[in-house]
């Protein structure tokens, strides 16, 4: 009786050790590598917009294609905060140093995509803020296993994410 119990436990342990543990470990590493690739692509994408002052359809398509090559599907959030220094209108104020109160107007992913599709590019200016976030929408193997074994609540939590933001450094030309 005692031997049978130990054998059953040993088989279960062996199954976990020989199959589940390597699979979990490997899938976790795969997600790490995907995260790394997505973060790198996001940083490059944002840096390009920062240094050129232009967001083009080509750059955006290339970014989407790079992160999709990790084999996951992504939800991409883009945001542009457009700086309005509104300079001249403040000139009549008594407090001269108040010139340059800044406002930001935000435009988001769907508006940005519409504009990219219709005009092929969005021109930004020095001082605008551009940010991009990519999160996976599919469940990766690591997530599935983790949810199954650890009973983690919130199955829709993302695993692979890349995010970056930058203040645009130049006035983009409307060429």
């Amino acid at each position, binding site marked *: 009786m005692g031997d049978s119990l130990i054998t059953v436990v040993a088989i279960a342990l062996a199954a976990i050790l020989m199959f589940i543990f390597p699979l979990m470990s490997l899938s976790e590493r795969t997600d790490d590598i995907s995260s790394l690739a997505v973060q790198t692509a996001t940083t490059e994408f944002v840096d390009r917009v920062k240094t050129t002052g232009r967001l083009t359809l080509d750059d955006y398509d290339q970014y989407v294609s790079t992160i999709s090559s990790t084999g996951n599907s992504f939800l991409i959030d883009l945001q542009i905060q457009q700086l309005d220094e509104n300079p001249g*209108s403040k000139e009549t104020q008594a407090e001269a140093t108040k010139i340059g109160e800044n406002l930001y107007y935000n435009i988001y992913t769907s508006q940005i995509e519409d504009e990219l599709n219709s005009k092929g590019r969005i021109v930004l200016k020095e001082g605008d803020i551009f940010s991009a976030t990519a999160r996976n929408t599919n469940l990766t193997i690591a997530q599935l296993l983790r949810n199954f074994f650890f009973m983690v609540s919130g199955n829709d939590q993302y695993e692979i994410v890349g995010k970056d933001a930058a203040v645009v450094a130049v006035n983009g*030309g409307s060429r």
Partner: protein
Amino acid sequence: MKLQHLSVIFVIIIVPIAMVMSQYIQTQIDTIKLQSSYQKALDTATHDALTAFQINSVNNKYSSISDSKIRDVEAAINTFYNSLGTSMDIYTSKKEALSTYIPAILFTLYDGYYIHSLYENTYKKAGSEGDQSLRIEIDEDSANYQIGLHPYIYYSCKYLLNGKIVIVNYTLDNAITVYGDFGNGEGYQTKSGYLIDYTKVNNIQLGSKSLTYDGIEIGPETLTEHLLIQDGDSVTLDDFEYIVYNSQKVYRDHDGRYFYYENNKKRFLQSETATIDDYISNNGVGFKSISAFEYYYDAYNFSKWLVEETELDKIEQKDVIKMNETTTTIGNDTEYLSTNTGNEKIFDVTDPDNDPQLSTSIFNSHRMAIIQKSIETNLSTAIGNYQNSLNVYQFVLPVIDEENWYELTNNVSIVSFMQGIPLGMKYFNNYSVISNTKNEEVINNQAIYIMAQETTGGAMPGSIEYHRPGCKELIDGVNNGNMQIIGGYTSLEFLRQTAKLTEADIRYFYPQARVGTTTTGCYHCMVSASLDYNTDDIIKGEIRSFDTGNVLYNESELEEVRKMYLMALAREKSDLYKSNF
């Protein structure tokens, strides 16, 4: 062997593999994070350097003069190292320590560029101090290596024309200088000017200082600036008309006297008044700027001379003499330059596809390719020769992508290279290109803003907005009569100016504001730039849809905007101080 034993052996094998793999990936992640932080530090430092150059050159009246420009460039380089040191948290380190990893910094300016890198100082003092024998000698084997600015390199290219060498110096716009024997029997000549399609210039009236360019009438115009004037304790903001004479703005006071604007005060002209009066009298158009007319008239003469009186218009890409070669041309090597213009004639501006004012012209493509080749050749040599004190890293010029080359060949830019910093499993090797349009070095096609005042049909009658030339709101507003164009100036004129009256009293003003009304940037083109068409389309006089290719605005619908834009662009280019023209 029992199953338990197998499990233990399996664990012994798998666990170390998993640990090593995990460690390896973690190292890769750390490397990427470190690389990103270095890249951000490099971008920030380069941006700071350019901002420093912009502030220094805009506020330095003598910035165009070579010595003063070198000072501005060196100040920008100091800013670069300070910023980089701060970002990388090694501020206490000296510039020399950081420069170990910075093989070169490139400054592209209007007609040439500086490279800040290692050079061999062959100058040596000889004789004794305080003695007449003290002199400078050249010691070619000095091995005295220093980091500093290399001599200024012009964007020049040699061509073989009828067996003789001619040299063309390019700039960031359509201005060129040509040297050589051009086969017109005049011998060796040197001429400078703006290259335009001169066949578009007609009806030249020297008396009234007017002409037509591509159907647009160019003539004298009244220019206005809004200045903060300090007079004793009183401080007023007022509008004054001005002209540019000898690259300096001369304002006219309301009582008719002329003055220069210096340190927030009027400095009235004394003995120079007669000279200004003579100049105005000779112009015959009153106190108005004729710079736009002069630009087109001079460009017409230069371009016509080049095409009709010399054989320069026959030059093709194959006639380019290779860099560092005496007479060897590139011939049929279509890959020597980054852009292959084939058998097209580079300087034949009468070709409809070769209007040098357009960014898509053959001249412009060739110009950018020549500048790129020159920079690549000299930069790769400078970086390749860079000696690291540790001698463990081989410095090479990284591949710079096309988008960055476009910026470099059209704007004042700074490119910094950082290489050889250990990043765990590899070395950092990247560059940062930052360009800007807010400087007094170059007026490019995007540097002009147009002011329009709302008429009674507009939402806010009397208010003034400034727009980019391709702004849809502007074009529509002018066409439906809700806006009236009142001027066009460079983007610099719309920047906030600071007037320091006392240590505690600092005021701000905008040169293109107007008394009694507000001047604001247009939301659609200045703030969001979402409704802004290409400036090339404005120059051509036709805007087509990106999607369908249908004509959105024809020549007559663009006439008013185009007229102001072409005049302002010409005037500002003409008024720009150029040391070598």
